[in-house]
Every structure is written in structure tokens, then in C-alpha cells.
């Protein structure tokens, strides 16, 4: 089948599953996106200055563009899109234009049902276009969070590891730092303690470069009390590394996680929130579960998946409950 024909068949499947067409704007407010998705995004966006000084960009991605359109109340929550997204991808000879075809459930209210709906719709559509040797790979960022929260270490380390899970390179650096426990400079710590008592006498509402004195002192105080060194850094890193090696058939996942918990002397009930993943067994497909997965997209928060035909990746997506929050309101979402 030709690719145009293929996408027609896929779109038909989307529609029959209740997804409605979203046609997000091509031109978006560049600052709005950077403010929310970070400076790193800037280099990939194709932007220009408007006469009134506002910087606009071509939509770099249809998920982001659809979220914005949804927030402007232009679309319903269960949408599909088919169109071009424009961005630099770094490599030489990249042509800036990416065809994107996909579905989203924006503001998803029923996690298990909606996760299933998105993945089953995708599966149906690839079957309709007669793809062979279909395999699915899934992961769940939520499981990693459950693990980290169950481990005994200072709060700031937990937050750090969770925040940077999606950046494997830096994450590895963090693990090495955690192993060796390098974090603080004892000398400046002492002089600053003196300053701490001086500053306590100041007007606590005074703002220094955007932060109030009370905010600074509160964090300083918390930092002193938060244990700087703890004995188990090495052990914890070992547990995390072992966890990230889990790769098994979905049908074996319960057993695998139970074994992992037992071997590492963790409570056996730490992984309780993965019903959404379990539910995928209903798909009757060859599904692999991988913990070290979904780490390239910052905004995923829960289930992540990739669909393969043989070795070729044909679809991917996941749940991103925080992206809409950063774009304006708190809403959960699932995407293909």
C-alpha cells in the first residue's frame, strides 16, 4: 500500500475508535513553548520575530501543538492529528519536516481505561494495514518512582534521581556521585553558617534576586539537617542498576518484580501501581516489559510503549500527566 493510502486506513481506525480530528495552529508563540519546555528546545525550533517583537515558531511537535489547541478550547479531549511538524534535528541533511500521525487523550480521567484505549487503537490500526510480526515493548516511569521512594536516602537525592531519569547520561553521573557521596564543601559551609545567623535578623520578606530571605534561610536550614552522608549510597546504586536491567515478558512481570524485591530486601508491596501495565495482557500480544525504557522524552510520567513490526519501530507513545500542567492547567493525558 502507498503511504497516503496507509494513513487513510489508519485515520479511519482512529475515527471509528472515537477520536476526533484536531488541526492545531502551525504558528505558535515561541516564548510560551520555551518557558515551559526549556531552553534546550530552542535550538530545534524554527522561529522568527514578528513585527511587534513577538517570537513565533513553526509547530515543532504535534503533541505540544495539540495540547495548546486543547487548552484554548479549540478541540475535544479525544483527538487524532495528521500533519507536519517542523524542527531541526541536528544531523546533516535533515529536512526539517516530520510527518506525524497520532492520537491523544487529553485530560484523561480514567487511567487504566485510557491507557488501554490508546494502545489498543494503535494496535488495531497497524493490524489494519497488515503489518507483520507485531511486537510491543512497554515500560512504566511510575515503577521507577515507586522504587526510588521506597529506598532509604535523603529526600533531595530522591527528587534528583526522579527528575533526571529521562536523561540517561546525566543520570549515570548522578549514580556515580551517589556512590561516592560527593555533595558539599565543608569550608564554605562554616562561614555561611555565620552569615545564616546574621541574615536571620534581617527583614525576612526582603527579596534577593527573586528569592526571599526566608526562602533562602529555610532551604539552608533544611540542607544542614538533611543528612549529607549516608552509609548506603553504594548499596542503593546497586539496587537501582539491578532494577534497570529488568527485561521480561509481560506475563512474567509479577514474578520478576517480586523476586527483585525479595533479593534486595525491599518490601514486596512497593510496586503496587502498575495495573495499567497488567491490563495490557488483555491485548493478547507479544509484549515485553523493560524498566530501562522511555527515557528519551522528558515529559512522560507513566506508561510508555513502542510498537514494532519485526525490528522496525512503527509507533511510540506514553502517558504525560504533567505537560498540560506546564502548559497551563493540571490534566492527565495519554498519547500515541
Amino acid at each position, binding site marked *: 500500500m502507498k503511504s497516503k493510502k496507509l494513513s487513510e486506513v489508519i485515520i479511519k481506525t482512529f475515527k471509528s475508535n472515537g477520536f476526533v480530528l484536531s488541526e492545531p495552529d502551525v504558528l505558535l508563540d515561541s516564548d510560551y513553548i*520555551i*518557558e515551559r519546555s*526549556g*531552553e*534546550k528546545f530552542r*535550538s530545534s525550533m524554527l522561529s522568527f520575530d514578528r513585527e511587534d517583537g513577538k517570537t513565533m515558531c513553526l509547530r515543532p511537535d504535534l503533541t505540544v501543538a495539540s495540547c495548546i489547541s486543547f487548552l484554548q478550547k479549540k478541540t475535544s479531549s479525544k483527538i487524532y492529528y495528521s500533519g507536519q511538524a517542523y524542527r531541526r534535528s541536528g544531523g546533516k541533511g535533515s529536512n526539517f519536516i516530520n510527518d506525524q500521525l497520532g492520537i491523544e487523550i487529553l485530560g484523561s480521567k480514567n487511567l487504566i481505561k485510557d491507557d488501554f484505549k490508546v494502545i489498543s487503537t494503535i494496535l488495531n490500526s497497524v493490524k489494519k494495514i497488515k503489518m507483520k510480526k507485531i511486537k510491543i515493548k512497554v515500560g512504566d516511569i511510575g515503577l521507577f518512582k515507586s522504587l526510588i521512594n521506597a529506598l532509604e536516602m535523603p529526600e*533531595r537525592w530522591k*527528587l*534528583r534521581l526522579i*527528575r*533526571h531519569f529521562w*536523561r540517561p547520561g*546525566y543520570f549515570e*553521573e*548522578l549514580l556515580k556521585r551517589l556512590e561516592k557521596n560527593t*555533595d*558539599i*564543601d565543608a569550608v*564554605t*559551609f562554616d562561614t*555561611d553558617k555565620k*552569615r*545564616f545567623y546574621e*541574615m536571620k535578623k534581617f527583614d525576612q520578606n526582603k527579596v*534577593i*534576586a*527573586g*528569592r526571599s*530571605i526566608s526562602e*533562602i*534561610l529555610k*532551604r*539552608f536550614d533544611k*540542607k544542614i539537617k538533611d543528612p549529607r552522608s549516608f552509609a548506603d549510597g553504594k548499596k542503593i546504586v546497586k539496587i537501582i542498576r539491578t532494577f534497570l536491567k529488568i527485561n521480561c515478558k509481560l506475563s512474567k512481570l509479577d514474578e520478576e518484580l517480586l523476586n527483585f524485591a525479595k533479593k534486595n530486601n525491599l518490601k514486596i508491596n512497593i510496586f503496587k501501581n502498575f495495573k495499567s501495565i497488567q491490563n495490557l495482557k488483555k491485548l493478547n500480544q507479544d509484549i515485553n516489559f523493560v524498566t530501562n525504557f522511555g527515557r528519551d522524552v*522528558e515529559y512522560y510520567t507513566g506508561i510508555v510503549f513502542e510498537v514494532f513490526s519485526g525490528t522496525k519501530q512503527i509507533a511510540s507513545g506514553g502517558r504525560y500527566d504533567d505537560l498540560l500542567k*506546564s502548559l497551563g492547567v493540571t490534566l492527565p493525558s495519554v498519547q500515541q
Partner: protein
Amino acid sequence: MKDLITIGLPSKGRLKEKSISFFNDRGLKIIQSEKERNYFGTIENKPDVKIIFLHAKEIIQRLGDGTLDIGVSGLDLLKESDINLQSKINIQKKLDYGNANLVIAVPDDWIDVQTIADLEEISFDIRLKRNTRLRVATKYPNLTNDFLISKGVTQYKLIPSLGATETYPFIGSSEIITDITSTGKTLADNNLRVLKDGLILSSKACLFTAKKKATKLQPFLKSLGR
């Protein structure tokens, strides 16, 4: 003239003096125009060499577009420039002057912020509580970007600055800054402090050459010595 060699030297301050001495010390006496504000110069007994005094930033640009064959400028300015431009320029020799560090500085009174790890933490905090990003004022957006991202600080926004960047945190234009400093005095005098691990780049003056001119420059560079 095909064999004419054009050299760009910094037009101001210590960098200018030191660059002239660098050539003089190697037996290449630089002769400046008698007119005080003239931008051109020559080298004694080298009729095929032309000297132009330019802004250090300009020297990098002109090496890239082929106007200059050789130039003295700061490593910081090369590394900050566009990657396509950098690929056209060779670092021929690092010189022993013009030392300066590009660093991240925070207000003295942010006593809870000593390391990049702290910065990372409060940037996420600001993002979470106020849904805005930590603003970083800088004259070096590219180097700052690469550095912060590599250290896991992702929740920030760059504020381009042209000068007196040290004032930004105190006039509400940014929260923190990155800037070039040789003694640290300007930072300290403006109540700013360098983060313990906040060194972005250690810079110095360098002798740069345009890659395309490598063959033509061989004999002259030899006369400059190693």
C-alpha cells in the same frame, strides 16, 4: 596580492598590548600608523603582511569569512561562536596571556546555593512553585546553555546581556548570571559569588588561523616559531 597575509589583532587594552609584544618578541616588529585612531598596521620588513586592529569578537567572524588569515582573540569567543564558524578556524597556539574564566555566579546572600546541584534543585523549585524559569543573564548564551544542560540544570531561561551583567540579579532582570572574570573582583564588588563547581570555561588568548589558508600560512607560521 595572492600571497598577502592579513592578521587581525585586538584593538583595545591589555589584549592589544600583549598581542603586539607577542609579535615583537619574535622579531616581528609591528608598526602602527602614526594617526592615533587608524586601524591598520604593518610588520617591519614584511611587505606581504598586513595588520588590522579589530574588536576581539570581530576577529573570529573575519577569520571565518576569509577576510583574515591569522588572528589573536580569546578562546571564549571562539567557543561561543556558531559551530559552523568554529569548524573553519584552527587554534594554532594558546598564548600565555588573556587568562579569564567563564563562570556561574549567584548573589552572595544565596547562602544555600554552593554547587550546581543546589542550582539544579532551586531551579526545579522555582519552576514548580511559580511556573516560571530561573533566569540566567549572560553574554555567552551558547556556552552557558551547553554547560547547564550537561549539569542537569534544565529549568532555566537565558537573558541575553551586552554588558554590566553583574547588575542583572539586583535590578530584577535575572536571578543569576554567567560572566567572564580574570580576578573575580568585579563579581565580588557586586555581591556575587562563583559556584564551587561553576567553571564553564578556562579561557586565554589564542593565535587562530583560517583553516582554508593553512598551506599559504606555513612559512609565516614557521617564522613565528612554535
